[in-house]
């Protein structure tokens, strides 16, 4: 009976620890963020969405730092935010390009030339 008590106590301690503390390294999230940031840079997003690109880059660096410091909770948050910031930067660039294309098409149509 006493042994069972001890086992249960140990089990409950483990449960509590699992519930609050243990977070695995966010390897996947950091990799996705890095891919998003890299592809935004290659596509030229920095010129169209400098703020978002900078935020994404800074957060990725902070996430990598947090991983090194074993603060996996913070690292995961930063990586997830970085990824979306980078995606938004690319979207903004697409909007800017589409807007320019539409203006040119309309100008070409009104002057009767071909775009």
């Amino acid at each position, binding site marked *: *009976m006493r042994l*069972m*008590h001890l086992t*249960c*106590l140990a*089990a*409950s*301690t483990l*449960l*509590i620890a*699992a*519930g*609050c503390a243990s977070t695995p390294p966010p390897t996947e999230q950091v990799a996705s963020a890095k891919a998003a940031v890299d592809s935004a840079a290659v596509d030229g997003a920095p010129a169209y969405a400098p*703020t*978002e690109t900078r*935020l994404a880059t800074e957060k990725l660096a902070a996430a990598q730092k947090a991983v090194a410091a074993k603060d996996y909770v913070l690292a995961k*948050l930063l990586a*997830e*935010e970085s990824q*979306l*910031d980078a*995606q*938004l930067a690319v*979207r*903004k660039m*697409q*909007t800017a*390009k*589409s*807007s320019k*294309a*539409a*203006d*040119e*098409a*309309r100008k*070409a*149509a*009104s002057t009767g030339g071909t*775009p």
Partner: protein
Amino acid sequence: MNTHSIFTVTALAAALVGCGTVPQPNAALDRAHASYELLQGDPKAVEFAGPEMTQAREALGAADAARTRGDTLRSVDHFAYLAQQRVAIAREATSAKTWDKAAADAKAGGVGDKAAREVAAARLATQAKGAELAVANAGAQQDKARAAELEMQLKALGSKQTDRGDVITLGDVLFDSNRAELRAGGVRDMGKLVEFMKNHPKRTAMIEGFTDSQGTESGNFDLSTRRAETLRMALIDQGVTADRLRTRGYGEAYPIASNTSAAGRQMNRRVEIILSDENGVSKPR
């Protein structure tokens, strides 16, 4: 076997208690909801950005869930931020497709009224969106979140806003009558204050001691000074750096209640901690 299940239930309950608190209102999350609803009212968003809208809705759901299960403010803010960015992405998708359509119309039908209208509408959408850029708001959002968190921390400390700043009044429960040493439980009560000082490293604190009018004036002055000093030493012991803490004893001056009743005297025996602003500036008495 029965014992077993009781233990498991206890453990689960403990795990829940350990992580959760009562859901708090969250300004960032409210704003994310408002942005989403605004965008949902735009028929073009529904037409052009269906998948992105779905992702935004799911992100909002995750943020709502985080708040409901009592995540920390940082965690709820994080999910709210993700939701806000998802909404912004959906908005960009809407704008880009609207422009694409305008371009296609211009190419197909020349400079017809329809094409002109499309371009005008697209330009308007882009401008309206520009006015409330999610990331431009992010800084303000974080400021607000920080302010809200600070307010909560101060509230937990029982602080009051005065024209001198945030003032925390510690009653005489910390000290025995006519003694300057902290009671056993006194140090533990200061845990929140220590935590606050650690979270706000630029803030300084002025610790002021007061007594009731019993005893001699010089004795009271001395006692109030020593009590303030005791508190300072206790805070230093717990890791607050000495240069952020100043003390002063006022004796029986500045009573906050009448000294003619026991209850009034008890209120007058107190230590007040005046917190500076974020830049370390505080007003003298």
